[in-house]
């Protein structure tokens, strides 16, 4: 192992845990693309797998009569999945290298599980799409890229896997690279990297492949460790959804009144003039508390408590923004919706909606089109959205939402739809605009 990542002991990794940063990434690929094997490989080569876990997997592989240790068994969690040999839900995996901690949202790739992929991608900084070098791009890999793009995952890696099975042929890699790059021009993918790998043998996963001297780009792990994500958050437009009003009502803190929440955008500082929405009342930030400490600025994704100078009426669901830079309260919402339940979404349907810390009811006014995630074709004849379908929907809400376009802010631009009878989350929305 020449890569320095693997030469460090876990103790040295631990040493740096305190200050390392975080990368959340979502993986997508079909059962046969070797996704679980790749994740197993990342965990194994970053020494994140423990002896007993590896032993269990080796024993199972042996009892099934495999010639090699099936690393996929490391991530197939639930018994029903192990029996069927497929991954049925989003699983979260963790590993760390000296510079970063990684959270993987491992999502299944089958047609019917778009909702899981949307779920995994919603919190991801990076999306990892796998293709089998022998097959090239499939309908499914295109669909994965479309979903990652819709969810505004800012970085995308296309891993061309199983290069060992095509004799590490550069021409095959180049052809897939070109085809995908061409396809990606139709999407919103600010950063794309295409890496030829063999998850099974480890080529270009953590260590550079000696079989592909023609490839000069980073290994997958190197890219994951170094991709720049700090600038992906909006640090300009102040958005602070009020989550919880902190009122101690104790003798010691008799007059304390603070607004707890997670900063969704911008940088808040004491002294800033702010507006509270939807009331439109203005005040100044008196102080920002992080537990028992006063801090001088708060930025995403910090959870803080903000105090205001004036005794204005503020409650959960309100939003604190800047006087000259605030979202427009809106009851008419235009959004892309991913539908996640069997019973289709239809016009006139009423649903509960949760946006930031605000809950309301929503009426489906119109379904403008259904997006074919394989071809990007817009089907305007549709009158409903079925399970795992994505479409453009107009909603009318009972109270104004304090929203931004999803392309500007993934927190203030997203919402979930809830079936009022069952209480189940049935839809995920990405706002185009409010008017």
């Amino acid at each position, binding site marked *: 192992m020449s890569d320095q990542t693997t030469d460090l002991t876990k*103790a040295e990794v631990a040493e740096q*845990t305190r200050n390392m940063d975080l990368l959340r990434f979502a993986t997508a690929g079909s059962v046969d693309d070797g996704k679980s094997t790749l994740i197993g490989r990342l965990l194994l080569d970053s020494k994140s797998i423990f002896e007993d876990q590896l032993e269990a997997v080796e024993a199972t592989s042996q009892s099934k009569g495999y010639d090699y240790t099936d690393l996929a068994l490391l991530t197939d*969690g*639930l018994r029903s999945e192990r029996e069927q040999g497929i991954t049925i839900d989003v699983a*979260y*995996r963790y590993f760390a290298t000296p510079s970063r901690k990684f959270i993987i949202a491992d999502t299944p790739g089958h047609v019917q599980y778009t909702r899981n992929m949307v779920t995994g991608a919603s919190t991801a900084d990076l999306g990892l799409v796998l293709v089998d070098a022998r097959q090239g791009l499939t309908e499914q890999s295109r669909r994965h890229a479309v979903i990652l793009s819709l969810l505004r995952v800012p970085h995308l890696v296309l891993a061309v896997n199983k290069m060992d099975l095509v004799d590490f042929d550069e021409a095959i890699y180049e052809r897939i690279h070109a085809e995908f790059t061409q396809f990606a021009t139709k999407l919103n993918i600010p950063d794309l990297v295409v890496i030829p790998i063999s998850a099974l043998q480890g080529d270009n996963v953590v260590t550079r492949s000696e079989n592909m001297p023609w490839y000069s780009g980073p290994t997958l792990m190197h890219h994951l460790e170094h991709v720049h994500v700090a600038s992906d958050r909006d640090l300009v437009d102040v958005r602070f959804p009020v*989550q919880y009003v902190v009122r101690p009502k104790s003798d010691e803190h008799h007059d304390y009144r603070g607004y707890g929440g997670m900063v969704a955008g911008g940088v808040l500082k004491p002294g800033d003039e702010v507006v509270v929405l939807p009331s439109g009342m203005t005040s100044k930030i008196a102080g920002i508390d992080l537990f028992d400490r006063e801090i001088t600025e708060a930025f995403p994704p910090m959870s803080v408590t903000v105090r205001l100078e004036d005794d204005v009426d503020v409650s959960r669901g309100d939003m604190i923004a800047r006087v000259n830079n605030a979202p427009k309260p809106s009851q008419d919402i235009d959004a892309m919706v991913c539908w996640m339940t069997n019973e289709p979404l239809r016009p006139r349907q009423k649903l509960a909606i949760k946006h930031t810390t605000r809950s309301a009811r929503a009426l489906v006014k119109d379904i403008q089109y259904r997006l074919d995630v394989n071809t990007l074709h817009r089907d305007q004849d549709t009158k409903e959205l079925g399970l795992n379908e994505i479409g453009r929907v107009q909603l009318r809400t009972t109270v104004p939402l304090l929203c931004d376009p999803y392309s500007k802010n993934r927190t203030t631009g997203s919402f979930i739809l809830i079936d009022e009878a069952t209480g189940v989350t049935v839809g*995920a929305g990405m706002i185009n605009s409010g008017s």
Partner: protein
Amino acid sequence: MTATHADYRLSQLDQLEAESIHIFREVAAEFEKPVLMFSGGKDSIVMMRLAEKAFYPAKIPFPVLQVDTGYDFPEVLACRDNWVSRLGARLIVASVEEAIADGVVIDDGKTSRNRLQIGTLLNALEEGGFTAAFGGGRRDEEKARAKERVYSHRDEFGQWDPKMQRPELWSLYNGRIHEGEHMRIFPISNWTELDIWHYIGREGIEIPSIYFSHQRRVFERDGMLLTESDYNPLRSGETVEERTVRFRTVGDLTLTGCVESEADTIDKIIDEVAIARVTERGATRGDDRFSEAAMEDRKKEGYF
């Protein structure tokens, strides 16, 4: 804009803390009657700390529930009492012994206390009318947990259905439940064992003394080192000897093994954890070793 993006970088530990605080506040705002399940273990102590931070300077707006197996380490109960009194929280103790006496659960002499906790816990949640119960589960602990949501829905029997989980997107949590159902909430889902230790070290908070290296009279059973205790009668061939040990998890003392260790400070524990080659549950929890799918089964029944 004078500040550059690089100035506004949050370390992963701070990001985890912020996410957990967000979850605590969300639950306190949306649920009628939350409760914090407290085992006295390191994970639930981190939970207490996060709850303290989420609502400061107000007190935590929900009670603390502990399931007393009757086989708890006295050091753990002492630590629990210190925490509860420092935070001024209300403590509810649900006793497995009492549940057995009341016929809520049946002790057949073969079932572990950990398993008897399930019935005791569900009964306590029902009696208290709690609609949300915070637990200290982490997704890195075990394969079944890796797929569990932060908000984990439980039906009126307290059961978890892994195939009927609600999708969980962005940081938008869906807390809707029907009468008689409740939600398990896992605010530290994304923390790893190492994160927990770094956080305890950084915050300088009290944990039970048995986590640190100490002299203890122990005996070996099924490859585990168990503590000498009246609850743990020796079987033939087992002999007690004094060793330098510490516990990596705390639970029912008849089933929780210790490891030989000289680690008597948080930093030494972190070094030890970082080079450990066996997961904490696999090493020291007899109750998870009965079958590969043991945890999945217990979760479906209503385990933490």
